[in-house]
């Protein structure tokens, strides 16, 4: 079995360096090109392209027709893993392990400015059509129901912990400001959900050779919950725990709390971050609220998604953050959590570490 190194990362926002607006395609091209430059390789050195594209987020009924090219796919092997950017990372990881590919460019993106009303109108159409869609269920409503379930289960201190997380993950914001922001879907307030932004993110994965890589993709694990909100255990993320167990076993991590130095968690709400602590084994269940209230330099050290996040592909940034932390020496081993779907239905855990 081959190992995987991460040799390049790149990202782009809604405008280029001169402030000129990107199209969706030119934003992807910018991120992909930056990752290749970072890896010091050319597009022709790649033997695989893996993307995660969301058709209705992008407003292109088969997005990859238009987006695979700027992601480097011309006459190359290519696949679009449309359920999650985390799954795209997992697919590329498996292709390296399988031995079918040596160098893969992984990309995902979201461009909130592309659609009227941002990503929410399209997201809403993923509600099941016979029972749930007509009830007005949306990604925001599902996140609010999850936050409510969490606070009910965790007790009266949960709200203060959530406010503290939200303030920390939005640098420059105080818990009081979060608490004073307008309610948008109770119990969530405006500053407890990420503003939607434009962004594209790319990583270069390479088969490990004889040379020791600076950064390794030690493992990826991914698990799912069901879609129907009424049947979900909204106050728990058991499937995240299973995804973490897969990733830790594959990476040889025995005691996550001791062996992992940085946690890049997907805080699509502050409650979602708190719900991740126990299944990722950052701390035991009884310590979650205290850790959330006190904070930790190891958790979302760059700030969180609450600073702003591109729809669908945006959480791929967690993997880029983990690579940056390992490269800088701030972390020997880091975890990136990526989720998609209502209330974190699809969970991916990547373990990214310094080469040994």
């Amino acid at each position, binding site marked *: 079995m081959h190992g995987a190194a991460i040799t390049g990362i790149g990202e782009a926002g809604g405008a280029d360096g001169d402030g000129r607006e990107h199209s969706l395609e030119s934003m992807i091209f910018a991120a992909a090109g930056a990752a290749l430059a970072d890896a010091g390789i050319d597009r022709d050195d790649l033997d695989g392209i893996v993307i995660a594209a969301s058709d209705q987020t992008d407003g292109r009924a088969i997005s990859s*027709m238009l987006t695979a090219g700027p992601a480097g796919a011309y006459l190359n092997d290519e696949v679009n893993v449309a359920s999650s950017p985390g799954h795209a990372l997992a697919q590329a990881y498996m292709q390296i392990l399988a031995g079918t590919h040596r160098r893969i460019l992984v990309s995902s993106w979201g461009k909130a400015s592309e659609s009227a009303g941002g990503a929410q109108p399209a997201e809403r159409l993923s509600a099941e059509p016979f029972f749930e869609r007509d009830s007005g269920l949306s990604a925001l409503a599902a996140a609010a129901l999850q936050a409510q379930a969490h606070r009910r289960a965790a007790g009266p201190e949960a709200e203060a912990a959530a406010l503290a997380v939200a303030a920390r993950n939005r640098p420059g914001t105080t818990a009081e400001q979060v608490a004073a922001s307008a309610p948008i879907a109770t119990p969530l307030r405006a500053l407890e959900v990420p503003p939607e932004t434009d962004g594209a993110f790319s990583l270069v994965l390479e088969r490990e050779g004889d040379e020791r890589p600076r950064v390794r993709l030690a493992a990826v694990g991914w698990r799912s919950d069901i879609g129907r909100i009424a049947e979900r255990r909204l106050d728990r993320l058991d499937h995240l725990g299973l995804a973490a167990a897969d990733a830790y076993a594959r990476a040889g991590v025995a005691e996550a709390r001791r062996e992992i130095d940085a946690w890049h968690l997907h805080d699509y709400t502050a409650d979602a971050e708190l719900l991740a602590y126990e299944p990722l084994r950052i701390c035991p269940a009884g310590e979650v609220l205290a850790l959330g209230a006190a904070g930790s330099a190891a958790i979302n050290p760059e700030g969180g998604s609450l600073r702003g996040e591109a729809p669908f592909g945006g959480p791929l940034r967690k993997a880029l953050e983990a690579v940056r932390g390992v490269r800088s020496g701030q972390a020997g081993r880091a975890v990136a959590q990526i989720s998609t779907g209502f209330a974190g239905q699809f969970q991916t855990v990547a373990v990214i570490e310094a080469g040994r």
Partner: protein
Amino acid sequence: MSAVEVNRPVAAIGVGQTPFGPTHEAPTYVEMLQQSAAAALDSAALGIDDLDAVVLALAPESLMGVNHAERWCVEYLAGRDKPVMRIQTGGATGLSAVEAGYAHVASGLYDRVLVVGADRVRESGDAQKIFNKIWDPFYERDLPFTTITMIAMSAVRYMHNYGMTERQMARVSLKAHRNGALNPNAHIRREVTIEEVLESRYLSWPLKLLDACPQSAGGCAVVLAAPEAVDPAAHSPAWIAGHSMAGESYYIGDRLEFSERGYDYGDAEALAVAAERAYAMAGITDPRRQIDAVETYASFTPVEIHNAEALGLADLGTAAALFEQGFFDLDGEIPLNPSGGVICTNPISVTAMVRFVEAVLQVQGRAGPHQVPNARTAVATGAGGSHQFFNVAVVTSEEPNR
């Protein structure tokens, strides 16, 4: 791709299809998934709890009407707490999903993986209205292009280059319908004459109604397994000896100069690229001798003609005449689409997976009335996008050399 050093081989140990037909007669989307999965699990002598992971094949979900419908599906595939991912590469989706399942198993991470999908192409009313929304919003969507005009223009180019006639296209349709009439799962199961094809109305010149695929509903599933999970007593494994995908430029207007291979938009260059890689992986050096049966994704008759060339079964510009001579008939030299192919059945999300499943059935000797005698190596292909994404899988009855 010379760097391929496969960690471990991958076998298909179970396949399942629903009968395909019009959308209004089909069960709901999730029921079709379940029926396909159950059929594949039955043929693999496994239960759903034996599965380690699930790959969902779902092409543009705007056809069946639920955005990111993978979220809906998890519950219906016993996917709670399992690894589940969804693949979408347009018409190539069904085979891309098999390729993703291959990676699951070959990586060593999973021993038994379900690849499953379904579609209800007319759920949205008119698929071609959606197929206008696939084009570049600035340059091409207003025109209005569709997948029909896309292939009509490829056919015009091929006619210009090689003199293909509408009568030669009709011969492909005759063969497709003759084979489809033998396939109990096919959507269209009636034979047609060349005159009937020629007299059917134009959709977009030179394509006529009987040159075209139907809009189908139905489901398909495959269970892929590691060698360690193959039970000789229960399974008749079909091995994935090679596979690859290649994507062309999106821009059709960029594909009008002859390439170094001698291809232009009348052909399918990326299919040739994908085939070269898949054949290299599978050790196929002489496709005309080594391949016994082919299931190729051709939603219109002229595509089947140029696909035969891109797959190395005929020289450029010669395939149309070979079809007329019966070379690709069920009793011909290299049977092409013995199942009737996409001309008889097109449930888009799984169309390319059906190609794979039919290839598996051929090398297992289980294809029934449309069996190619003694088939040991079969090829399946997918196609998607702006005649853009092409994938190829080589399926063998023998386990590939390790």
